[in-house]
């Protein structure tokens, strides 16, 4: 066989199951030598699982993998290295207390004495070749996300990888850092390496890749050359049919200022500024959307309002519609906020890590918000039980019974339990973060309808989303944040995806 035309990777009929969940089904995929291939797909379409099988993290249950035309059996990341495959995971696999250089050389068996100085020399050569800037003696725990990513890429290159897989590398980067990353990727391609980039961002696909392979619900739906396609076609491939969201949107009525945020500033545990000078007002009877690249400060913003983050400065003012008083929630604990009579509900992004307790049953999870009621030292499971049954009935939660641990429910049903509990207390402010992530279409619509019901009932809803189509169709106003700063607040009825997309990638707040 002619070596030059043989694809770098070929997947044939790959299937992977996690219990009853089908992660990948009969996937066929080809990665040519010296190309940048985008793997495009929505959240949960099986992109990462598929790539993990090439990188030796998982074993396929069925199917074959060919590397350079020969069938390969990849049982571990070590096997992957012998095939010159390296993957840069979304969650970096670095040792915090080691220096960059130590992380890069980790696990490599070169002949002769271990000499970090000598190895550093060769690492520097690679850095110079592709234009990386890193301090090799810096400890990982002192590094920014972008620096860590650089270390990951150099690590893979240092192992002599010819095939690089990057899992959503830009999700954590600023626009400038993304530009730098793309430059490096092009330099590597020039050098003859094959690069696979997993992403769900269309603009990046169009910008960087030579070819796009699309996955939908774990199956491959085909590949196209980037130059022959356009974002619309890709979207259609990705979602299967043209995106037609018919979310009903009522006109906001009786709008009052419910939650006033003024000049909010907040730093994370490492001391980096994550929210700077954020100011907005959320009104009753409207859905206030928040758009932005993942990690732009959305989580910290919602957690600040919920009393879970320490603020540097700023005000969080709540206008109580029943008493007419104004309360300042700044630096109050969740408990103090509740004692003020503030009816604030919060559906966090991390459902099983924060919103719910996976090992507890539905009743006990429903009880999380209300268990303190009453002066008795003992729990009353009667009301939570009927509430749990009501949620199961009304939101069509698929579960054997209310005594099933939520860990064993599917993603959509977990979310229904969480949202059901949060709206049960008739909130005045309802914050939801990525509420439909990982959910099927039907469940998503159930959630949209619930949010609309709450809106019509006069709640002020803050909706953090990632799908711009949904944001535009569901919200009344959309605030776009970028790098922890507000870059604009737009009217959802008149805005376009392009306008929001632009705001998402620029810092500052000039335009209105």
């Amino acid at each position, binding site marked *: 066989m002619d070596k030059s035309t043989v694809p770098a990777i070929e997947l044939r*009929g790959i299937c992977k199951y996690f*219990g009853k969940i089908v992660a990948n089904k*009969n996937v066929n995929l080809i990665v040519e030598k010296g190309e940048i291939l985008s793997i495009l797909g929505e959240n949960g379409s099986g992109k990462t699982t598929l790539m993990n099988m090439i990188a030796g993290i998982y*074993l396929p249950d*069925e199917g074959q993998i060919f590397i*350079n035309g*020969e*069938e*390969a*059996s990849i*049982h571990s990341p070590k*096997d992957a290295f*012998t*095939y*010159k495959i390296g993957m840069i995971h979304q969650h970096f696999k670095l040792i915090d207390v080691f220096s960059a250089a130590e992380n890069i050389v980790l696990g490599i068996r070169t002949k002769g004495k271990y000499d970090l100085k000598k190895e550093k020399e060769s690492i520097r050569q690679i850095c110079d070749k592709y234009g990386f800037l890193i301090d090799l003696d810096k400890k990982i725990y002192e590094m920014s996300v972008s620096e860590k990513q650089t270390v990951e890429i150099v690590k893979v290159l240092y192992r002599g990888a010819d095939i690089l897989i990057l899992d959503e590398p830009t999700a954590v980067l600023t626009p400038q850092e993304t530009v730098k990353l793309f430059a490096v990727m092009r330099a590597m391609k020039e050098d003859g390496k094959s690069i696979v980039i997993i992403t769900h961002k269309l603009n990046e696909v169009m910008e960087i890749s030579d070819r796009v392979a699309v996955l939908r619900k774990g199956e491959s739906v085909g590949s196209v050359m980037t130059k022959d396609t356009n974002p619309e076609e890709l979207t259609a491939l990705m979602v299967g049919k043209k995106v037609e969201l018919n979310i009903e949107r009522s006109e906001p009525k009786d709008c009052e200022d419910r939650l006033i945020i003024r000049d909010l500033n907040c730093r994370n545990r490492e001391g980096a500024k994550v929210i700077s000078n954020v100011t907005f007002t959320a009104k009753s009877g409207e859905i206030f959307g928040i758009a932005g690249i993942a990690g732009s400060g959305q989580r910290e913003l919602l957690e600040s309002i*919920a*009393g*879970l983050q320490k603020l540097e400065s700023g005000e969080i003012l709540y206008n109580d519609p029943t008493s007419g008083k104004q309360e300042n929630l700044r630096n109050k*604990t*969740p*408990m103090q*906020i*509740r004692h003020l009579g503030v009816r604030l509900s*919060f559906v*966090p992004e*991390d459902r099983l*890590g*924060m*919103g*719910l*307790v*996976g*090992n*507890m049953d539905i009743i*006990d999870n429903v*009880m*999380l*918000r209300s*268990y*303190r009621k009453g002066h*008795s*030292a*003992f*729990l009353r499971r009667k009301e939570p039980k009927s509430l749990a049954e009501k949620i199961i009935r009304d939101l069509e939660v698929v579960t054997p019974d209310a005594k099933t641990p939520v860990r*064993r429910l599917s993603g959509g049903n977990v979310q229904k339990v969480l949202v059901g509990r949060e709206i049960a207390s008739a909130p005045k402010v309802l914050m939801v973060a990525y509420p439909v992530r990982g959910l099927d279409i039907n469940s998503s619509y159930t959630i949209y309808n619930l949010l609309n019901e709450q809106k019509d009932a006069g709640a002020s809803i803050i909706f953090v989303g990632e799908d711009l189509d949904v944001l535009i169709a569901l919200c009344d106003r959309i605030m776009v944040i970028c790098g922890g700063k507000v870059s604009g607040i737009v009217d959802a009825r008149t805005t376009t995806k392009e306008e929001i997309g632009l705001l998402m990638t620029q810092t500052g707040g000039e335009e209105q």
Partner: protein
Amino acid sequence: MSHVAPHMEPPVRLSKRDVMPTWKGILVRIAGILLGVALSSLFIVLVTDLNPAEVFTSLFDGCFGTPRRIWNLLQNTAILLCISLAVTPAYKMKFWNIGAEGQVLVGAAATAACMIYFGNTLSPWLLFPLMIISSLFAGMVWGMIPAFFKAYFNTNETLFTLMMNYVATQVIAFLITYWENPKGSNSVGVINSATKAGWLPYLFDKQYLINILVVLALTVVMYIYLKYSKHGYEISVVGESENTARYIGINVKKVILRTMALSGALCGLAGLLLVSGSSHTVSVNTAGGRGFTAILVSWLAKFNPAVMLLTSFLIVFFERGAAQIATSFRMNESLADIITGIILFFIIGSEFFLNYKLNFRHSKKKEG
């Protein structure tokens, strides 16, 4: 390019189990115990060339042979169960308290102090409450010190509580130098042997009955506390996910401190039962390693107080039985530790089969 031959498929692959039916879980555990028993009897037969049947007869004889042995069995079970109940709330909270040994010791020391200094001056109506309060308090303080540092500085509680055990041992050794009776014996001797002041009363003439009843009551209370009280619920939430606990407004630091206060106090109570309810003396060996065994009892029962009745009984049964084998065949009494150790290794090992599944590769080929 490198030529790497495709590897052989590994014959066995591991995966996490979702849930196993209860009856299957019980069967696996029983199988584990039986294997452990088989191996330890093999050990006995090898070192003694006894007939296995004889060994087993004396195993049961050691536990149930005489009324006195039965009472001893029950008393030991009660004390072990008491300490196991004490450590359980902390474990449910995923606070790795291995300092029960020390918490029991300081509780025992506090009890002994009350008996020695006030035994002959206070009326029993004052003495007993004083003993109870001071033993609970001593254990509580011992438990709350590491809890404080865990809550505020995230200090590693496993290592901290481990060190606290030996500080407690030295505290007792220190006190013994003041309390020793007779002088120079380096032991405390039976406290108030003439007046029996501060000795827990013998109910129906049975020395250990009161201990057993107290611990039985405690088992019920602990079961209810963990399952039906708001505190118990908060403990579970903190143990499962601190993030969730903060999200719903639970003061995590407070729960850690409160739970360890309770855990330590109950260990102190075990100290009281040991000194006032059974040995009537105190030494550095008063806890006798039960603080460590209790962790096993609680862990094997998956932190369920009702199941702990069984696991504590089982461990004491093997300990006492093996001790009897040792005496009746004139072997060293440490045989008991060996046998318990072997059986526990098997029980611990069998947990694996409850949590993981072995997937044997079949040569099934699916055609599309």
